[in-house]
């Protein structure tokens, strides 16, 4: 028999207590892909799950492309890329998540109103394959973690972890305790957040947490200004960026988040609170109907070419003709 490295493994395998080594990511859209990169960058294994083999392949290619972009922007080296990719694997089979210590659900359904049921189903399927100590989390913005977790046999292992976009640069994560979340789950989630060099923002469960609730109202109010013809998209963004030191103005931010997502968040919040301030502005709705859903499709409040902003699409609620 040939000699192998494993012949020299120590018999007493020492696992440090409570280590988080394998992370499952269910639903691997843009956010899921970013989470895969972060998790792997910090030395953990990432297994992502999506609905078809073809999608799994495309996602991997996208992650490769994102890493290559990062190299071209000087942020990574070839060997970093190799290291990151070596720890990322894709699958369509829930059974492949069985050894994961920590699972992040980041499902995004295009169908309006379907998200809650889909997420519940995903949670059930995750629980059916993972070990009893595994933590199940949802990257929920406006849905309630307690409600999603209500379908679990052990809802105390569920917790909300809200990553904000772009997750690769934002250094905070909202950690949302559900009604049943136990202390161990909370502590493990906080430990995970620290392991990926992010800061924990503790949230008492409430739809929209801090981030979503405040940002959608800002975006909506910016749309009101536009509707009233007070100022242009660019002027409003510039005022908020330079006047208040925001990294992005409200419209630029809406484009980055995706206008469809903004509308979905607002619908959920409106349903929850029945407050006028959460009713999505007709400007955003109109853009979404025309498929001007933001940066990812090349047009939203601004027009984009190769990911770079090249101009506005809309002036005082009127579409700009090219």
């Amino acid at each position: 028999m040939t000699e192998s490295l494993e012949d020299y493994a120590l018999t007493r395998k020492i696992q440090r207590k409570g280590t988080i080594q394998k992370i499952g990511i269910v639903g691997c859209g843009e956010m899921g892909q970013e989470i895969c990169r972060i998790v792997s960058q910090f030395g953990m294994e990432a297994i992502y799950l999506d609905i078809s083999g073809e999608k799994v392949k495309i996602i991997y290619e996208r992650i490769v492309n994102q890493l290559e972009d990062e190299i071209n922007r000087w942020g990574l080296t070839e060997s970093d890329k190799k290291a990151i990719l070596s720890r990322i694997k894709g699958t369509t089979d829930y059974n492949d998540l069985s050894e994961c210590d920590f699972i992040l659900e980041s499902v995004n359904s295009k169908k309006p109103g379907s998200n809650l049921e889909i997420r519940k189903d995903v949670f059930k399927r995750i629980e059916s394959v993972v070990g009893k100590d595994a933590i199940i989390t949802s990257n929920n913005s406006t849905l309630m973690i307690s409600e999603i977790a209500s379908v679990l046999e052990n809802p105390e292992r569920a917790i909300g972890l809200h990553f904000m976009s772009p997750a690769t640069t934002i250094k905070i994560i909202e950690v949302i305790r559900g009604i049943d979340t136990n202390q161990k789950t909370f502590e493990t989630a906080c430990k995970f957040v620290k392991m990926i060099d992010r800061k924990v923002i503790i949230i008492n469960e409430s739809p929209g947490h801090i981030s979503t609730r405040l940002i959608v109202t800002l975006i909506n109010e910016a749309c009101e200004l536009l509707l009233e013809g007070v100022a242009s998209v660019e002027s409003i963004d510039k005022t908020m960026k330079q006047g208040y030191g925001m990294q992005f103005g409200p419209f630029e931010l809406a484009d980055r988040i995706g206008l469809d997502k903004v509308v979905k968040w607002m619908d959920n919040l409106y349903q929850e609170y029945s407050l006028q301030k959460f009713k999505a502005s007709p400007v955003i709705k109109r853009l979404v109907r025309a498929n001007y859903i933001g940066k990812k499709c090349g047009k939203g409040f601004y027009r984009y070419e190769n990911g770079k902003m090249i101009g506005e699409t809309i002036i005082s609620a009127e579409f700009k003709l090219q």
Partner: protein
Amino acid sequence: MKIIVLNCGSSSIKYQLFEMTTQTVLAKGVVEKVGLHGSFLKYEPHDGETIKLDGEILDHQSGIEYILGILSSKKRGVIKSFEEIDAIGHRVVLGGEEFNKSVYINDHVIQKIEEFVNLAPLHNPANLKGIYAMQALLPQTPQVATFDTAFHQTIPEHAYMYAIPYSLYKKYGIRRYGFHGTSHRYVSQRVCEILNVDINNQKIITCHLGNGASIAAIKNGKSIDTSMGLTPVEGLIMGTRCGDIDPGVVTFIMQKESIDIPTISTLLNKHSGILGITGISSDMREVSGAAYDQNNDRAKLGLNMYYYRIRKYIGSYAAAMGGVDIIVFTGGVGENSSETRFEVCKDLEFIGIEFDKSANRKLQSKEMTISKANSKVKVIVVPTNEELVIAQDTMEIVMNLQTRPRDLLW
């Protein structure tokens, strides 16, 4: 007494097991590509066959487990059980102003090394991984840290301060710390043994030229200046680091390329230096091949910049010390590249170097003088041996543990 010395990098672990009574290396080797595809363990026992074993090595802890496993294995081991190891010595890159010599590792020391992570983000975390792994695997065995910065703690204030607002030094400890201290210390002491001169009246310039590179001015046995600064990016041009640069260039690039702090750090640390200029490689051998075999202009430019920068430092350190008696070359490039040594020394006759071209050409990786017998300034190659220094320091500290409580040793 058996001491294992570990040098943990971000994806590699170099190790040497010493028998200190005879000062011999029982076995040494390296674990490469930790957490990457193609990871392997290389093992060289002193009287056995060198082997390379491929396999999955997910993290530093499993890498160290394999090292201990093979060292104590029936088939290839050099010890019966890894519990025979009496102490562990770690190379730790940055010890700040806190540590001017090697120390016994206790909670306070670990906390300090953690605190210095922001000053050495590429190195201290990997060193800590090695310390933590050993704590888990051999919890009863004393560990010692030898700091790259410790030897340079003798640098006087006027040389270590940067001319920026003083309050920033007080607030963050921004100053020159220098690195490769263990190597500069070893080769400066060793060269005096070889030449049979008293280190206390010598002016020595030590050139540690590896993938990372630094140069030090050592007067009367004490480091009085060195080229690396707060971080290892200052000074000489390196494999992938830029070395000295106008700080205005940094802010200009950040503005023009719209890049953030981690990205500019990666640009200056990993995309620059010989690799950045030549676009070929960070490995001097490859660049040298491209320059001379393929007549590649950018490779030639990269090499000329590299040599020029070293020469400039030698001149300035000779001025800083009021002369120079000995110049030492060490590190992978310094020990093996006769071309580098020649190019660096060739215009330095005015400071008293009479270079021995033929001795230089023949020499590879061993102790030897490469200046002529009557040269006023001696030029010598001394292969570095940081591991031995770490092992010796570790032994000394561990012997003292028997007489002093551990927690007081810092």
